[in-house]
């Protein structure tokens, strides 16, 4: 029981407190690739602390949604951090509260809440951002959910821990068609959800922003919370991609051994960052309306190979 509590705490605290670090590492490595000096890897923390100390401005026309949703969304991401194998490859205390599909739906719930709150601010810019996001999410969320179902087809359960264990013990299962294409589709979705370069560039905010558009009216404490939850989301998606799809190995679940998972997870995530970095520095950003094409490809692949896996074991 003690071990279980320890594991739960480790996973939860790891996700909450280390997720901004990965954003920092990403920015640093990107700067290095572009031969700049770049910010410190702790820059996201500094940003969050700075914002927490600032005053919060709230638009006159907004209602309670605008004020409370950042906290609720943060809470939703915290719940997801407890139910999917993002650090510990073994069920922890709250795992039983939802399955993999539940995790996917919670992601959608958080996205929906954030969009509703952003609309509530009544600003034109956020309205534009939300409408973009809505038209993209038709395919994006659909693909996300489909991919989560696809992975459960390999093992026949909807439990990501079982899937992880199965993939570790059966290396050849990693090469089945449904797994390969679910991975490709999920990787594409990952790039979209985390706003990486072929789809969204942090540089030119108004023109290319998709996800950033939601934060347009937020300031101070609320903005800090929002940023933090988006770091958590990025980490969660990345960790699922790593542990269930791309690279399920090397995690340990025994009592003192689980502490080793922390450096291993950091290492694996840095690996993922490097892969993303290659894509981000070699590809050009696509035009905004081509994002839909990109998502359509991801969606098609996930559905098609989901169906294929029904016929071809």
């Amino acid at each position, binding site marked *: 029981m003690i071990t279980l509590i320890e594991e739960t705490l480790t996973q939860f605290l790891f996700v909450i407190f280390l997720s901004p670090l990965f954003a920092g590492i990403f920015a640093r490595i990107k700067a290095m690739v572009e031969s700049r000096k770049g910010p410190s890897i702790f820059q996201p923390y500094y940003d969050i602390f700075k914002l927490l100390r600032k005053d919060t401005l709230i638009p006159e026309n907004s209602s309670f949604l605008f004020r409370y949703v950042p906290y609720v969304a943060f809470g939703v991401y915290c719940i997801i951090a407890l139910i999917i194998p993002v650090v510990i490859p073994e069920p922890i205390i709250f795992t039983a509260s939802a399955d993999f599909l539940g995790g996917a739906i919670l992601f959608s719930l958080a996205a929906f809440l954030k969009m509703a709150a952003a609309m509530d601010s009544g600003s034109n810019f956020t309205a534009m951002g939300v409408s973009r996001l809505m038209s993209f999410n038709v395919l994006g969320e659909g693909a996300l959910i489909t991919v989560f179902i696809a992975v459960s087809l390999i093992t026949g359960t909807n439990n990501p821990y079982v899937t992880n264990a199965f993939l570790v013990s059966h290396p050849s299962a990693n090469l089945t068609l449904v797994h390969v294409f679910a991975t490709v589709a999920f990787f594409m979705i990952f790039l979209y959800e985390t706003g990486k370069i072929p789809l969204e560039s942090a540089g030119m905010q108004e023109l290319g922003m998709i996800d950033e558009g939601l934060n347009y009216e937020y300031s101070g404490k609320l903005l800090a919370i929002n940023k933090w939850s988006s770091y958590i989301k990025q980490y969660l998606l990345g960790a699922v991609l790593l542990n269930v799809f791309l690279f399920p190995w090397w995690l340990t679940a025994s009592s003192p051994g689980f502490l080793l998972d922390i450096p291993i997870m950091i290492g694996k995530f840095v690996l993922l960052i490097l892969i993303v970095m290659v894509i981000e520095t070699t590809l050009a950003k696509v035009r905004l309306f081509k994002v839909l094409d990109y998502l359509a490809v991801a969606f098609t692949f996930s559905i098609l190979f989901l*169906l294929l896996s029904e016929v071809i074991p």
Partner: protein
Amino acid sequence: MNFSSAIYLTSAAVLITAFYIQGQRYLISAIRGQLVQSTIIAAIAFILAYTENSIDLLILGILLFFLRGVLITYLLAARVPMKKAYYFESGINVPYLFLVDLVFMVVSVFILYSIAFSGLVPVTLPDSPQDLLFPLLLFFQGLFLITSRRSTFTQIVGYVEEENALVLFAMFLLPVPIVIEASVFLDVLALVVISSVITVEKVNHEQMEELRG
């Protein structure tokens, strides 16, 4: 890694080229996509020729690569118009096409397969009868390409894709006598030559008042 899973993954690659062609706006990319597709199918023929120890399949692979891959690509690519208004197809809505395509595939292929083809026992690939699904998917993908596009070139590519699906199907199920296979190839080649005569006259195909009803 054994041969059946190699064939399985390669045929998945064929399917990807089919989707690549479906999503292409540029005519020349679609034509090159066809080249890649034929080459992959030729590669499957070579793998099968090796495992089955069959000289017919070897000839088939060589024919596929040269007639379909090289010659048809050359014939079509030489005729793509240089005018900017023609070398890509405008008004292609990729997400819409893909979603309709998906529904079409599900309705046609999966239902057709489960009704008609699921009991087939391939002579060439006895342990993986489900691989027959790939040629069927490719066939209906080619059909969808023809119906969803207005350009002569893309429609020809769609037709060649259908023929590729036939070859793949025949290869998987059991190799048809080489005389017939070869004459099929020549037929298709001649048809493409004939079609390319039309590309000189007409690049896009729309509804016509004269041909209504």
